[in-house]
């Protein structure tokens, strides 16, 4: 079982990395790019037999308290 967490900067936070990547894409000739946001991807391997609902709750808690900073980031959690 694997948990996948995608962490992205909140829109209100200036994202110079995203902006830099956007400019680079444009300069490389890619057209139609109107925004780029650079975030983080975390994969967590869970022991086989882990209760998925319990894992969801625990990892939401971990994502909110630790893996992301809710002041500056949003996260999406998926368990498969």
């Amino acid at each position, binding site marked *: 079982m694997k948990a996948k967490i995608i962490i992205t900067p909140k829109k*209100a936070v200036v994202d*110079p*990395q995203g902006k830099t990547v956007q400019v680079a894409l444009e300069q490389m000739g890619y057209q139609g790019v109107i925004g780029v946001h650079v975030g983080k991807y975390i994969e967590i391997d869970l022991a086989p037999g882990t209760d998925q609902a319990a894992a969801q709750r625990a990892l939401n808690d971990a994502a909110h308290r630790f893996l992301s*900073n809710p*002041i*500056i980031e949003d996260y999406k959690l998926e368990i498969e």
Partner: protein
Amino acid sequence: MNFAVLQFPASNCDQDAIHAVRLLGHSARYVWHKEHSLGDAEAVIVPGGFSYGDYLRCGAIARFSPVMQAVKQFADNGGLVLGVCNGFQVLTEAGLLPGALVRNRDLQFHCEHIFLKAATVDSPFTSKIPSGKLLRVPIAHGEGCYFADEETLAKLKANNQILWQYCDASGNLTDTSNPNGSLLNIAGVCNERRNVAGLMPHPERACEPLLGSDDGRWIFESIFAALKNKPIARAA
């Protein structure tokens, strides 16, 4: 006065903090991040560095170190806590200070001297800064851009919690004098109770003319004065 200077794996400004406090005539000792007690410390410095390699986010892992329980307790009891650079990051991650520090807007690591204006002298960290005096202090950081949402910024202003702002040599809060993009040129803030403060610049590296400036002394002198005058909040 006894100062406790925390040490996390990869803190690297702990020695400078110890040196500065001792240079100014007070005592300081290291407290390793795994310790559960601050001993008889009367004030705590959370020093600069790259604790835990800045992995995940700066200060995100250090904030869960065992010693931070003691620091939280100490702060809840009114004890004075000063976070410098990575220490500021640890304190915001720990929720002991509002807001967050993100990557510098130009994506560059800034290692230079800046000017700081004390936005208020109404705090144990700024009370001794002479009126109108600008502090020349070095910065050395890649993630020092202060961010807080509109509501938090409004509260900081209303409560006079902004302690230091980046300014030019004439004391103007300009965009060019802002090295990292911090909102409102914020270099440092305190909590509502005014006993916990953090700043990105390094006052502990500006206590001797040999290092280019001794303006950092004013911040330490403010803390010494506060400790002298208040009933001591003993660490647990």
